[in-house]
């Protein structure tokens, strides 16, 4: 922390866009200043880039004749992928007039299945972010690609003589086959060079466990849909890694199918230290200390496979009350499920837990059923080393040239490695990245990297399926790709990236048929590239170490932030402002703790606590951050998220939250304990847009037993007036299945992207002025076992038929359409805000300021990102969800052209389309055959606040949860 702080203040050259004082801390009209900063940055960036272009004005003449195959204003879709730790998540990008304006899941892609998560949605803002690095810099001063190229080429040529000794290359995880080819060439050219892989969210312990069991680091593909019992040992199945979306999709699909026959399958059991969305969905959740999970895992292995060598029963003393009960239930269910059981372990757990999980799967015979073994699609892990050897090489003077690409170890490597300090000692440091981040500031050279959506490339999905990445726009920030860099390292002549990727695949296919290429690029998926299942038997286990973690003192557990992850997305305002699923916190991080610990410490939410490691690393290691007290956190556990407290990159992310990495150790990345916790007595704001934690005794999220039917309140609908309105033949409605919703927040991000919803900044959120049209409410309810249950409920506009908002609008700015939408006429709104007051669901949002900053200098690039068919709302105007009415109208026009009705599923709302669990169904409620009509006929269907007789078009399907007496019994 200290060294990074110094790094920021050290820079004093004229080319910094902003003096540090301007950046943080922002106060007063923070949102405005920050949006203006965004604008100012763009202006300067443009200035810098302007040097590369011709300065004489050139005139172009628009044609009045239609270009072939190009209809102005029409929408085109392109398949590509965005990468998460090198893994591909396939998307279809919607391009309006050549500008990507929305990302949707690619149904053909195995990691997407047509859905995406919130982070993928926000990649769009990442693409257009005016703060992205746009110029090559040498020691902070503007340089150019040509200069860098010459310099680097000379330097590499010199290194070639030494066989690459002294050259060190740091890359992030990658699955790209093209890159692998180039890597091989470069490795041949520089046999002595050091290749390093830096992955802050690495699954190293899983690899280690696989190596122990199978002799080599195989990867697993989990198939929860095949299971009847899923046991997660501190594993957030629905978000961890790039397979979260597909896991959530398949899990929810299996549950829906089972529910239709009245059962809850797969039965989900989760043991975790702090609540995750997987834990919230669990049928049987245990809040347990992270250190105790290894006890659970070993005991579970002992129960399931008592014959396994090296497994001894853990003494009853080690597991206490509720833990033991949970263990008994888990063991019973696993044994009953047999080969249809699935046990998974999380990234934060040591390899022993992963090993136990895999051995349970093997012992139950579920290998090949609920979990498949494949050769790892990520190839760099086996070819590169970590950062520790780099640190030693720099210290010993062996390293003189360090190339870092797409990584930011100065911020996200563990501080013990003191990477920043070490890099600063060197002359030949080159950083390639999206932002001028902490690492860029520590290096002599910095050059912009192209965004995934600007690049040609290829990548594999977690199951090994390869896909081609195609650029949707010319690099906005003048960036280049990793393929370019690797070709440079390999000493290849300059060739467009496209040629390299195409050449690679045509070589593989042994054909240079254009049609094959077009087919692969067009679908985003290269046929028959999924990894084959590896049949491998586990080896005999070695003697398990007898270490039993001490169960004393307060332990701090670290997890990546659900949205900004390890900090890589800290500059993405959509993600910063997206309420974290469990805590609802935005724009920062907190020390999460349970009520008991908080009471013992004498701290309340917002009270600042000071955490110091007990191993006495001195004052520098202490961290102060505000507490947030919620139920569901394990006893004596404080959960914090990493990735906050950035100190370089973009004013959006700088200074948001607290960097807690000084507490982390190489030996214990995800857990430190015992720690000293002091209460400072000060308090700091925790920005949470949600008002209250519980349902206050009201029937809001309703639930039924599986196969059960909701008790009908007997909807009262006594029309005082006879209806006199013409109705359209198609009537739109929505049904949200609370039994499927996992509360991941993807719908919120998708809606934000689709409907041009502005970001307002932490100050405005704190003042209750967030703009999201759909929100995911989270409730804590009293659990049947005394702990807290967690419930999620997405709340968009309910499109009431008897809408209270319409009645009170003095100008008729909100009216009912003939097809049942509660429309907003933004042009007619004068901003009395009465509609918002009168909305019992509080789904209307008001532009208290000119949040969209239309006409401001920040606008040009951000404007290009906007959905052209959705009005950008000005100041003083109320806005709200209208079921993506522009999509309905577009479909209507298409249907009218065909002289037909809109078929079911032809219109999907943004929230529906993105939803990984397909919890949202939308369609024509006038037609009894549509999916939405069927959902509404379900015995689980209900209207929120039905007693108000607003007759919402959006209804819910009640959550299905086990009745307490049925628990603990057989499957």
């Amino acid at each position, binding site marked *: 922390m200290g060294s990074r702080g110094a790094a920021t203040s050290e820079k004093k050259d004229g080319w910094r866009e902003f003096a540090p004082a301007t950046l943080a801390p922002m106060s007063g009209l923070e949102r405005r200043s920050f949006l203006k900063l965004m604008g100012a940055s763009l202006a300067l960036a443009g200035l810098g880039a302007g040097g590369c272009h011709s300065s004489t004005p050139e005139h172009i003449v628009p044609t009045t004749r239609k270009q072939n195959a190009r209809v102005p204003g029409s929408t085109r879709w392109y398949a590509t992928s965005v990468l998460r730790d090198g893994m591909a998540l396939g998307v279809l990008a919607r391009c309006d007039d050549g500008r990507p304006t929305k990302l949707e899941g690619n149904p053909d892609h195995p990691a997407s299945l047509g859905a995406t998560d919130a982070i993928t949605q926000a990649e769009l803002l990442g693409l257009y972010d005016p703060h992205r690095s746009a110029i090559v810099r040498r020691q902070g001063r503007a340089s150019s690609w040509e200069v860098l190229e010459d310099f680097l080429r000379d330097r590499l040529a010199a290194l070639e003589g030494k066989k690459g000794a002294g050259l060190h290359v740091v890359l992030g995880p990658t699955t790209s086959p093209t890159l692998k080819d180039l890597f091989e060439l470069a490795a041949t050219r520089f046999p002595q060079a050091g290749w390093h892989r830096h992955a802050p969210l690495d699954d190293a312990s899983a690899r280690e466990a696989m190596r122990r069991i199978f002799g080599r680091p195989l990867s697993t593909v989990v198939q929860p849909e095949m299971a009847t019992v899923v046991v997660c040992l501190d594993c957030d199945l629905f978000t961890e890694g790039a397979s979260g979306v597909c896991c959530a999709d398949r899990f929810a699909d299996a549950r829906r199918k089972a529910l239709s026959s009245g059962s809850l399958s797969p039965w989900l059991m989760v043991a975790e230290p702090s609540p995750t969305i997987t834990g919230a969905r669990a049928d049987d959740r245990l809040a347990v200390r992270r250190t105790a999970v290894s006890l659970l895992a070993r005991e579970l292995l002992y129960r399931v496979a008592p014959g396994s060598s090296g497994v001894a029963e853990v003494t009853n003393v080690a597991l206490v009350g509720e833990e033991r009960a949970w263990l008994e239930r888990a063991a019973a269910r696993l044994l009953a499920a047999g080969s249809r059981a699935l046990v998974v372990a999380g990234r934060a757990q040591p390899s022993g837990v992963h090993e136990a999980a895999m051995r349970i799967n093997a012992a139950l015979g579920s290998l090949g059923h609920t979990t498949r073994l494949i050769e790892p699609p990520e190839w760099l892990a086996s070819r590169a080393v970590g950062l520790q050897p780099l640190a030693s090489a720099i210290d010993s003077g062996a390293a003189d040239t360090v190339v870092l690409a797409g990584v930011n170890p100065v911020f996200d490597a563990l501080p013990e490695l003191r990477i920043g300090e070490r890099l600063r000692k060197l002359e030949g440091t080159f950083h390639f990245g999206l932002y001028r981040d902490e690492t860029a500031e520590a290096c002599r050279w910095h050059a912009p990297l192209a965004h995934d959506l600007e690049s040609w490339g290829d990548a594999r999905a977690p199951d090994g399926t390869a896909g081609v990445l195609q650029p949707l726009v010319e690099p906005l920030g003048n960036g280049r790709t990793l393929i370019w860099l690797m070709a440079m390292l390999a000493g290849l002549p300059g060739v467009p990236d496209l040629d390299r990727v195409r050449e690679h695949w045509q070589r593989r296919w042994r054909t240079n048929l254009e049609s094959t290429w077009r087919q692969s690029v067009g679908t985003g998926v290269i046929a028959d590239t999924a990894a084959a299942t590896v049949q491998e038997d586990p080896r005999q286990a070695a003697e398990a170490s007898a270490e039993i973690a001490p169960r004393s003192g307060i332990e701090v557990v670290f997890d990546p932030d659900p949205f900004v992850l390890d900090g890589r997305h800290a500059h993405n305002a959509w993600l910063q402002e997206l309420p974290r699923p469990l805590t609802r916190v935005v724009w920062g991080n907190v020390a999460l703790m349970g009520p008991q610990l908080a009471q013992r410490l004498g701290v309340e939410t917002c009270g600042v606590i000071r955490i110091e490691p007990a191993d006495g690393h001195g004052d520098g290691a202490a961290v102060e951050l505000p507490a947030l007290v919620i139920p569901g956190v394990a006893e004596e556990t404080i959960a914090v998220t990493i990735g906050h407290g950035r100190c370089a990159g973009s004013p959006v992310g700088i200074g948001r939250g607290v960097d807690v990495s000084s507490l982390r150790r190489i030996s214990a990345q995800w857990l430190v304990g015992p720690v000293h916790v002091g209460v400072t007595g000060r308090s700091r704001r925790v920005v949470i847009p949600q008002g209250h934690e519980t349902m206050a005794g009201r029937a809001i999220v309703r639930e039924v037993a599986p196969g059960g039917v909701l008790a009908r309140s007997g909807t009262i609908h006594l029309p005082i007036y006879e209806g006199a309105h013409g109705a359209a033949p198609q009537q739109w409605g929505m049904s949200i299945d609370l039994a499927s919703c996992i509360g991941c927040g993807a719908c919120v991000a998708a809606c934000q992207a689709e409907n041009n919803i502005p970001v307002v900044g932490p100050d405005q959120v704190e003042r209750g*002025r967030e703009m999201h049209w759909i929100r995911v409410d989270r409730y804590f309810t009293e659990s049947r076992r005394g702990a807290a249950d967690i419930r999620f409920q997405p709340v968009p506009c309910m499109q009431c038929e008897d809408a209270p908002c319409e*009645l009170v609008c003095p100008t008729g700015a909100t009216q009912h359409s003939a097809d049942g939408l509660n429309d907003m006429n933004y042009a007619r709104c004068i901003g009395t805000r009465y509609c918002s007051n*009168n909305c019992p669901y509080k789904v209307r949002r008001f532009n208290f300021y000119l949040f969209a900053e239309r006409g401001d200098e920040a606008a040009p690039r951000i404007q290009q990102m906007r959905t052209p068919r959705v009005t950008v709302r000005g100041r003083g105007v109320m806005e709200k969800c209208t079921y993506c009415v522009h999509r309905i109208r577009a479909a209507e026009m298409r249907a009218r052209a065909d002289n037909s009705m809109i078929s079911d599923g032809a219109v999907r709302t943004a929230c529906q389309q993105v939803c990984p669990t397909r919890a949202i169904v939308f369609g024509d409620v006038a037609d009894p055959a549509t999916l939405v009509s069927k959902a509404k006929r379900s015995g689980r269907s209900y209207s929120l606040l039905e007693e108000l007789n607003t007759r919402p078009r959006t209804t819910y399907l009640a959550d299905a949860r086990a009745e307490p007496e049925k628990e603990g019994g057989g499957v």
Partner: protein
Amino acid sequence: MSRAPAALRSESPAQLVRASVIEGAHSYGSLTDRIAGIPLSTFRARWWLALGFAGVLTIGGVIAGAATIYEGVGEWGINQPTAWGFAIINFVWWIGIGHAGTLISAFLLLMRQPWRNSINRFAEAMTLFAVMQAGLFPLLHLGRLWRFYWLLPYPDVMRVWPQWRSPLVWDAFAVMTYFTVSVLFWYLGLLPDLASLRDRARRPAVRRLVHVLALGWRGSAAHWHRLETGYLLLAGVATPLVVSVHSIVSLDFAVSLVPGWNATIFPPYFVAGAIYSGFAMVLTLAIPLRSAFGMQDLITTRHLDLMAKVMLVSGLIVAYGYLTEMFTEWLSTEPVESYRLHARLAGYGAWSYWITIVCNVVVGQALWFRRVRTRPVALFVVALIVNVGMYMERYDIIVTGLERDYLPTSWGVYVPTLADWALLIGTLGLFAGLFLVFIRFVPVSPIYELKELAHRMRRLTETSRAPEVQQPSASGPLYALVAGFEEPGPLLEGVRRMRMLGYTKIEAYSPMPVHGLHKALGRRRSRIPAAALAGGLLGGTCAYLLLYLTAVHDYPWHIGGKPLHSWPSFVPITFEMTILGTSFGAFFGVLRACRLPRLSHPIFATPGFERATRDRFFLAVQCDDPKFSLEGTTSDLSALGPESVVQTREDTR
């Protein structure tokens, strides 16, 4: 509501005389000189100081208002869910205060309560200024202020009309009607006093200005008769108007779904609250005013006592409203309603509720004690506390109601910002400033009504001497012979005598209405009531037609599941427009019948006629009367025993 006048009526006129609403010894002249003298005297340092202080407060409000307009309503503490905050509280509070003036003036006039006369002028002025403050807020609070006119019907080329079912549109109509009618009512009552000022003013600029504003008021018997008719008509429509305006303001809340807003008790309870706070504000102003200008003999402790009694009664109605609200919340057993009940009593927002209860209900009970009602300082303190309490009541309804509504996840906190406070304080400053300007430029009490009252109460013991003004007699052709009297009795007698003698073209001029004079002159009843009726019918019919045609034919839209012809929603605006039409009919009927404005008239050339607005009663016989002869008529007039008989010659200069 209906209890208040009953309580007042229980005192017979005889008792009123005994308890005498005005004290001390007066004459027509002294009353005129004292009250008209306040605006005509020089400005004192104390006044400037007060005005400066009010100005400073106002400037703060102006800056906050400018910032709001420039940046947006985000400058305020409002948010989701609390989309309304101080602005709407201020609006309701000010409009409530604005109810006392018209109520005192109109309602007490209808009830023939003589004690209204000392206080009605400044109470009405207070109404106007309070409504001005109130009117600022619905405008400022709009997200897009510059589109405020979309609340009003105008022939838009897109054929877009307001949404008539919205209480906010009703509100706009109600408040604008209320302001307009209050101005008309106030101005009509002010005409004779402006004439008094005109005839007293020394500085030519002031005289010329007041001359125009007085529209040429001459105080003839016809003028008085028509003024009284029109004034009574206006009072008749202003009284239901007062009730309707705050009822409609209450519908802004009662029509909605918000817990704590949607209560049917709201209209009567809001009206009672408005009277309560309005009278509190009248007392807050009257008590310092009477001591500042030594008007204890005109605004007597009897006045304070009576106003305190009105407060007591309206306060009890308000307390009943609170109880009813609680009872229905308890009775409903709905979780949202019972949460609201518990929150108010001992949970979230209980502080604002209990401040309201203590200020409005507990402190208000002090008014049972005569010692409190008659002691100005004690009464002033109680009135101030009630003002605060009524503000807190609106805070409790608007803010805490919104902060805790249906879905707990939406619950929020409202914290007023500096701009919110500056605007509230700014309107207090502007209100005070306007009031200070008013007391220096306009007679604070209706002089002519006080003269009439003093006459009736036999309080005219002192004789006053008017300074004799030597006016050069005009040299033009003869217009009339004018006899001057000191008392209304001889004038009335004189008129009857002259009529018996066969004179037809005679006119009587008096500084106050003299009852029976109109009849004695043999004039017909005026047609002003017919004009008012026609205006009312026209206003109401046009309004309903407009609503019906625009909502059903021109701009038919599906709104909240309601039929296009939602007639119950059309009632408020139709009602307001009926009242407005009636008021216009009455007001312009008076002007038409009086042939006003007419700035020059031959009678003004009568030597000493300026006393016609002070203390002299004139009988004029025009020279075009068939029976007129200079000698004969002079002797006929002299036979009446007047103080003087003079010739009026037309001013040909």
